[in-house]
């Protein structure tokens, strides 16, 4: 399959639904090891992103992702704004001018997003951040020839869960050191919803 504008619109709508449905959970995860604003920030940002794209007419996926990026950057607040904004901005640039976004193009866009997270957040793998979900996804998806719903779901779930045993060295959670262990990272959790939403929106088109 190719990833079309309709998928891009469906994707962000589904991300927003999941974030709104799980706003309380994201907030309590963040209260445990962060500053407790992740649920509020993400729900505000993705609602604004959905509002922004719903009135527009898009000719390519790049345009959808660019609008999502700029909305998240200005509306999310907290560290998630620049980080999620960077993710969509990098993906938008990566697919600009590409006619058919197949799974290989999509996974190279994810790799761009991963390097964006590393650069913006000065993060590396294993530091208990959203990167610990995004990087395995980009790697796994680049190893297969087509969009694989089950692979996306399995990778997202296992990498999100694996953040539980990590010790945070980035962000507010880093101040807690060993105490951050035993909690799933809120950014990894919201990233899990992003990929669960991706799996949902390619369902039936694989």
């Amino acid at each position, binding site marked *: 399959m190719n990833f079309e504008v309709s998928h891009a619109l469906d994707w962000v709508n589904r991300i927003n639904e999941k974030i709104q449905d799980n706003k309380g959970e994201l907030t309590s995860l963040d209260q445990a090891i962060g500053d407790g*604003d992740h649920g509020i920030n993400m729900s505000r940002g993705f609602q604004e992103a959905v509002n922004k794209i719903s009135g527009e007419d898009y000719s390519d996926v790049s345009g959808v992702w660019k609008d999502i990026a700029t909305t998240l*950057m200005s509306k999310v*607040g*907290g560290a998630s*704004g*620049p980080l999620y*904004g960077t993710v969509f901005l990098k993906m938008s640039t990566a697919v600009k001018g590409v006619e058919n976004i197949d799974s290989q193009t999509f996974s190279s866009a994810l790799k761009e997003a991963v390097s964006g997270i590393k650069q913006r957040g000065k993060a590396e793998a294993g530091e208990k951040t959203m990167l610990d979900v995004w990087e395995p996804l980009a790697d796994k998806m680049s190893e297969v020839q087509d969009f694989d719903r089950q692979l996306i779901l399995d990778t997202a779930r296992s990498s999100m869960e694996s953040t539980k045993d990590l010790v945070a060295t980035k*962000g507010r959670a880093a101040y807690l050191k060993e105490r951050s262990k035993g909690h799933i990272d809120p950014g990894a959790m919201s990233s899990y919803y992003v990929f669960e939403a991706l799996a949902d929106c390619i369902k039936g088109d694989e």
Partner: protein
Amino acid sequence: MSHVGIVLVSHSEKAASGIREILEQVVGEIPVEAAGGLEGGEIGTNYERIQAAIQNIHSEKGTIVFYDIGSAQMNAEMAIETLGFENVHLASAPILEGAYLAAVESSIGKSVEEIFASLNKEFK
């Protein structure tokens, strides 16, 4: 004579404008902009506010941006990169003490390079 500008990025609108008040009271007329909080006075940092603050005071003398915690640095970096102005720099020194030192030096006509040398010496 133009002076190096100072932008204060804080999660709190009150903190940013409070620090600006201190600088203005002690140092007097130098270009200082506060970029604190989100719309509606909420706590957070917003890169559009930071961009606007830089745009308001930037001159050929240059601008130094101070920031507080967490996302402030990322949003400040993003604001600087997307504006693409020459001679805008991020300083990692503590926002109040660092900006105070920078304000004093800016008021006596020091350059961005000279101010950074003092910041690095004082807050290494």
